[in-house]
């Protein structure tokens, strides 16, 4: 289970580093964030939600019967816009709203 950080997009703002509940992210000399120990990631998505430029994605590895599919998220007011890219490259968009209760 792990996240991936897009080095091209990252602006080195430290937000992901500051939020990770496991203290797992660091920022290098070139002002790029990186995950120190991929095997220690919980997959909680706190860093995804925090990144201002959507540089972080969650990747499904083979241990969880994944084939590199990804999840990304973008915040818009009280809403989160999620995108899942499946193994066939298809993208599915889902929107959650913190003002709306779960159906279940």
């Amino acid at each position, binding site marked *: 289970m792990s996240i991936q950080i897009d080095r091209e997009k990252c602006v080195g703002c430290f937000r992901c*580093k500051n939020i*990770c509940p*496991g*203290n797992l992210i660091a920022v290098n000399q070139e002002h790029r964030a990186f995950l120190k120990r991929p095997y*220690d990631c919980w997959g909680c998505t706190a860093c995804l939600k925090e990144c201002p430029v959507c540089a972080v994605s969650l990747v499904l590895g083979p241990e*969880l019967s994944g084939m590199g599919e990804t999840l990304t998220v973008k915040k818009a007011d009280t809403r989160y816009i999620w995108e*899942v890219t499946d193994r066939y490259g298809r993208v599915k968009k889902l929107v959650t709203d913190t*003002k709306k*209760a*779960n159906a279940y």
Partner: protein
Amino acid sequence: MKVKIIRKDVLIIGGGAAGCYAAGKIAEMSGLSILIAEKANIARSGCLAAGVNALNAYITPGHTPEDYVEYASKDANGIVREDLLMTLSERLNEVTEDLERMGLTILKDADGNYVSRGWRNLKINGENIKPLLAGYAGKSENVKVINHVNVTDFLTEKKDGKIRIRGAAGFGTDREVFYLLYADAVLVATGGASGLYRPNNPGNARHKMWYCPFNTGAGYAMGILSGAEMTTLEMRFIALRCKDTLAPTGTIAQGVGAVQINAEGESYEEKYGRSTAERVWGTVEEKKQGRGPCCLATKGISGKQEEDLYLAYLNMAPVQTLKWLARGKGPSLENVEIDGSEPYVVGGHAASGYWVSTDRETTISGLFAAGDVCGGAPQKYVTGALAEALIVAEAIISRKEKGKTKNSEVFKAKAAENEDNAGLPKKSGLSENETGLKAELPDPQTMSINIEETDRTGDWETLKGSLSDAQAAGILEKYQKYFSASESLFSVQQVEEAMQKVMDEYAGGIRTNYSYNEAGLVIADEKIQELQALQEGLRAHSMDELLQIYELRERLIVARALIAHLGARKETRWHSFQENSDHPQKKKEYELYINSRMEDDGTIRIIRRPLTGRREKYEHSD
């Protein structure tokens, strides 16, 4: 490097659900100054990082707190502190309303009543519950938060055979700063312990577990080392979860009414019973007898139901939604496989943790516990953790108010601590009088506000030498030892995996279907002590490595105490949670609490205590 010394009226260790709420409550109800020391960042730290799916403990109309006590007690086969369950159940609805005031979205019907899931469960959107709680704590000027400080040890003193809290020590996770935090009222709220056993997904996804992998049992370990009494550690919690992702199953089971079925399509729950432990046990037994895998029967749910599940999971365990969509096969097309987790020690689901008075004071005087770290009251979940935080807040405030009358004593103690600062440059602009150091006794009212903060910079020897608090200097010396050790043969990860292997094989892990016996425990205890010796010899090159060494240290200490507890319950009280294969039946003579305390020589002494009644007010007497 630097040593930072901070004094406040109240120190809160761990800014999770309980810690944040206690801080906000104390600030709201008093003028006391409060410090939260948090290992990560209170905005998303601990169990609540990804969000939660429901408020699992709430008293719906037509029910009473007694009903909740009854339910939780029965589910735990009678080994609960009914006084603790009772006092928290009475506050569940009050804290729920508070959560709503903070901005938590709770599902309501057309008449504005909460919509429940069963009789003790509310439907919410829990994605932002942690940022809301953090905001609540942070909004008061009297609350200071230090994020990214890992607390490792309590500062205590022994007087007339009684241990009293003085504060705690820790270090910055990303900076060379060591913290000495003083307060005469301390709340430990560091959550439970995961990662003791070999996890469901060893290797690259080892932290894809249900419980928070960063709650490493620090609070238990600090307490055990300081001689605090612990209770019921042997009642481990094993979560029945979605396989691989370890995402919660309640949303599926209760949400779309999916039942547990085995590979033959039979519903098997009735056969084993419906308590939390029995549901895990049933699934284990079905698999053992060749009828696995077991699933939640979701095949055939409607497209709308499936879509709603995707959204609900994004609000608490997004990986599950990713897993469903990744394969293009959602729960309407494929049943959701379920599995038991690695065993955790967690007092919010089971009853393991600090042995406390009804006020939640531990056996270390002045030290309180709330939430997952606190024992005796299972099924407390997030609202129960908040209810306990509220009880602690009230206890601390009333203690402080009473203290005012005999304040000279408190001041003398404070003045003694203050010696640490003698001879150091004063903060600019403060006269001696204002720092309260050598002045006459100040007004007790003003004394409580923000006593002071001091920074010292230098190398190890200068820093240690500048401390008159011998215990604090000793802790600093321990940190230093890890930096100056010779290169270790093994990595932290290697020793950690060895510990998990030992626990898995000899102390009732997944490998043995959670059951254990005494012969195995003897081996486990010996091996854990060997691993403790290896852990002591590890070398840190950075603060980050020091953090990992301490996380391992905490887990090893909890593992040792857990082994002693598992051995002391010579019966099987809860299937799977505590399955003693030497004694496969429940026994009348074990209707008692198994408690423990670490002696000065490092041995763990078992203490057996009789059950406490619901309306009793329990205070520590010995």
